């Protein structure tokens, strides 16, 4: 009756009697999955932390497009992975990106380390489900530990927000500009938070416009709107309008076109003249109506069916001193109308003054090589923000865009869940310590598994130190020592190359990033552990 008296899963216990099950293939599949997933984790490991390295990714197709990044989610999404388990890891980092926006490398490294421990547990005879269940309990407990370390924060505390944004930026290519970019991200994020829903932040309300030329120093937050296009002034229209009345139109200022097929039949030359005259009158009529409503800036939605404007209509609009921006994308219309606090106009008949938006100044500005249209001083501006990113080459701009996205996500996490936690490997080592001591209270297989997995968490400080060129073993052991003495916030100070109280160094990150990293990594590892076969299907 040994099996019924021992509460622990009998998986570890030696089997009595003869039981024969052919498990060779299953172990093979599981081993292959774990190996593939770990290979992926190892690939991004070196990009972790402020001293992490970047990866250059050349796309395999004709364009041979090159990106340089150290954003885990970006690296993994560009790698063309085939092995199913490896793809699960790539998806894991995408989920972390969606959930928290930052920590996309951390989560993959964590999963890789957990898998390594899982493999040794399996070879020691643990049943995969026992390991998976232990992992689930570990995740729940780890989140409790993290909550215990968290520091509450107020949204009005701008300094703290800036600090956590700069922690996110510190590991990026653009880290030397973190003092510029992080306040920018914080201001942009705070300006779109609706007082009616204080815990919601929709990042779609923040637009990032990238423009080549200048340096990252010239990046600015614009209180208003920016269009990455020129003013259409082929016919010499104005490029600067003060006290603007802006209309967003969804119809076209061009000769009429019907949905039904039609053909105009010209039988003699006199008719030709008449048709040209009529066309002119038609357009003139439209322009007059536009002018009558007091409009002097026209934003025209892009149209695939017919020309949005013709040379002729541009000419009349220029005569009427109306500034024209054409080819506004349809999906931008909502953002534009929200910002300008106006309504889109779909028909000339509905062109009324009450649908217009107002701004102090609309002008075309030269930025680097190109020109952009800037709308500033918008009356009753909606809760949106635009960031104009500048940089000396496309690669830097793209990376700056990704980094800003991360920083904005960090702020969003803090808006959702107003707690911060220390960075620099401090939470991981604290979790590892507390979980290991908790494991001692447990019994049987579970205790053994949790002990192993708790050790696995040390991979984060270890890798941080390794990437910074420090001695990882010395750093991790000292870190453990300091945490054992009760210094909960001791972490790796990469700049000084030693262990300090990381809170004093202003290295902080949102609690949500850490909690979602640990829960997501555990969930993914559990899933990989439970797979025992790969079946090829249609």
């Amino acid at each position, binding site marked *: 009756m040994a099996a019924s008296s021992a509460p622990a899963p009998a998986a570890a216990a030696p089997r009595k*009697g003869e*039981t024969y099950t052919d498990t060779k293939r299953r172990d093979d599949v599981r081993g292959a999955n774990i190996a593939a997933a770990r290979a992926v984790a190892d690939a991004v490991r070196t990009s972790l932390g402020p001293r992490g390295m970047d990866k250059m990714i050349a796309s395999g197709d004709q364009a041979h497009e090159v990106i340089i990044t150290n954003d885990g989610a970006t690296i993994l999404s560009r790698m063309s992975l085939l092995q199913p388990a490896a793809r699960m890891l790539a998806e894991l980092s995408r989920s972390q990106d969606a959930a928290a926006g930052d920590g996309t490398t951390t989560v993959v490294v964590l999963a890789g380390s957990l898998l390594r421990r899982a493999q040794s547990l399996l070879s020691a005879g643990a*049943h995969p489900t026992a390991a998976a269940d232990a992992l689930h309990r570990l995740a729940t407990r780890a989140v409790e530990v993290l909550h215990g370390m968290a520091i509450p924060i107020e949204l009005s505390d701008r300094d703290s927000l800036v600090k956590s944004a700069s922690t996110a930026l510190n590991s990026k290519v653009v880290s030397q500009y973190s003092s510029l970019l992080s306040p920018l991200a914080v201001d942009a994020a705070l300006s779109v938070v609706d007082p009616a829903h204080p815990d919601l932040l929709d990042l779609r309300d923040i637009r990032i416009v990238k423009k080549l030329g200048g340096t990252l120093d010239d990046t600015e937050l614009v209180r208003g709107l920016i269009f990455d296009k020129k003013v259409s002034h082929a016919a010499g229209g104005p490029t600067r309008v003060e006290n603007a009345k802006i209309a967003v139109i969804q119809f076209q200022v061009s000769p009429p076109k019907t949905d039904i097929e039609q*053909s105009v039949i010209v039988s003699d030359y006199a008719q030709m003249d008449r048709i040209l005259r009529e066309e002119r009158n038609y357009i003139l009529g439209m322009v007059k109506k536009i002018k009558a409503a007091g409009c002097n800036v026209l934003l025209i939605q892009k149209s695939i069916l017919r020309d949005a404007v013709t040379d002729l209509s541009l000419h009349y609009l220029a005569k009427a001193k109306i500034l024209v921006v054409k080819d506004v994308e349809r999906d931008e219309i909502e953002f534009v109308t929200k910002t300008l606090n106006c309504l889109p106009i779909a028909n000339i008949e509905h062109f009324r003054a009450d649908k217009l938006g107002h701004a102090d100044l609309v002008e075309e500005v030269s930025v680097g090589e190109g020109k952009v249209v800037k709308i500033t001083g918008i009356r009753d501006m909606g809760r949106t923000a635009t960031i104009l990113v500048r940089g000396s080459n496309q690669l830097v701009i793209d990376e700056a865009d990704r980094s800003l996205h991360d920083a904005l996500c960090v702020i969003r996490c803090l808006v959702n869940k107003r707690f911060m936690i220390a960075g620099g490997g401090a939470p991981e080592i604290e979790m590892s310590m507390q979980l290991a001591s908790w494991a001692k209270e447990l019994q049987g297989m579970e205790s053994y598994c949790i002990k192993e997995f708790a050790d696995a968490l040390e991979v984060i400080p270890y890798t941080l130190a390794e990437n910074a060129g420090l001695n990882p073993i010395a750093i991790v052991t000292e870190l453990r020592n300091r945490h054992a003495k009760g210094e909960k916030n001791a972490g790796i100070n990469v700049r000084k190359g030693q262990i300090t109280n990381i809170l004093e160094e202003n290295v902080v990150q949102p609690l949500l990033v850490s909690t979602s990293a640990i829960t997501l990594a555990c969930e993914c590892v559990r899933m990989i552990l439970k797979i025992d*076969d790969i079946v090829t299907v249609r």
Partner: protein
Amino acid sequence: MDRVLKDDAVEEKGERARMASFIGAMAIADLVKTTLGPKGMDKILQSTGRGRNVTVTNDGATILKSLHIDNPAAKVLVDISKVQDDEVGDGTTSVVVLAGELLREAEKLVNMKIHPMTIIAGYRMAVECARNALLQRTMDNKENTDKFRSDLMNIAMTTLSSKILSQDKEYFAELAVDAVLRLKGSTNLEAIQILKKPGGSLKDSFLDEGFILDKKIGIGQPKRIENAKILVANTAMDTDKVKIYGARVRVDSMAKVAEIEAAEKQKMREKVQKIIGHGINCFVNRQLIYNFPEELFADAGILAIEHADFEGIERLALVTGGDIASTFDNPESVKLGHCKVIEEIMIGEDKLIHFSGVEMGQACTIVLRGASEHVLDEAERSLHDALCVLSQTVNDTRVVFGGGWPEMVMAKEVDELARKTPGKKSHAIDAFSRALQAIPTIIADNAGLDSAELISQLRAEHHKENSTAGIDVITGSVGDMQKRGISESFKVKQAILLSATEAAEMILRVDEIITCAPRRREDRM
């Protein structure tokens, strides 16, 4: 001797044919065997098609229906699992495994030179006996609402415990039971919408009364409407075109073109006016609503939703009690949908439209959140299984215990029968009992337990009258299923028993496999 069949046709006879079908069926059963039970494993399904999509699943029906299969007997097993899925929704793995075990036992008997027909006769007697044995031991708590609810909770938890949702099974069991009880006895699972949104963790999933549509509200339109009157439509909102190819208008001046354009606009305006004339304040269209009508709707203060997907439209019409309209000339004859509040809500990063207080009170939406698409897909499959079983149980309220208990109860009765039956049939009946016991054996094996030890203990327990013993996989011992709250629906168990036996019988009867010649493609060269 002349050939009877066409050139390419292949014929396999007697022993060889039977062998081929046994082997095929058993191979299929062995494939899904490891997914059985609360500690069953998952499989990766890797598609060979474009994109090489990856599915991770533990659902027998999903695995089986996506396999490439060449063996006719294996196809029969795939079919019964599909039928099981359609009929009761759960037990799709068990049915295949049981059929496989029955065939494995049958193979031994055939090797002992027992005629297949004798085996079939024995199996038939055994299945009748097993069903009756199970029927006598069912429990029915139809009268007692509280007890019935706890029965449902137990069933849901048992179903979910073998799936990905096992860690949060109480939470999801609660969700599923709530959703099914809202249906008030109908088995129309269409009224329960499952919406998947990546992000968050599984615990963030929730049940929402009402209906959620994954669409956006048009620009400049109200974001919240109370006491909504909804018109659901499937109509073109650009222009009503003449659908004759080559129809065109000839004009001789630009002004006329402008007139036609204006006329087209006017027609659209009239259509919109007609729609507004229904006295609605929300318009949902399956097709695109273009800028012009959108603005007209915005001016009239009507909330217009464009490009709703087909399923969404049908479900919306169902739950709000409206018709899907495509002409708007007779406002009286069109039934409008109603709901209390329409508003925009945010789940994760996405904005969705929420209809609450809908006409059909049964309707509800379960919003699933999870780390990745894989998790969400698998969670949906699991939840769907639980919902199916629950809705079946609401109709047929008989409940049995789980954890190998029903198999042991049946096996015991079948054993008795074997002892009483004279003749070769008793061998077959005996074999049936062994096949039944294979299910708890596999459950134990999958959990890494010593199955031989556990099953013998279990059998000893069941020798006592009215035992409630089953395998408790969590502690790895024989436990009291009543205390552990592990229950299953009688209907599912019965379906497993009957269809597995039928399938086994069918395969057993086969003594010849004829593979027809493939139809020649005509050479077009």
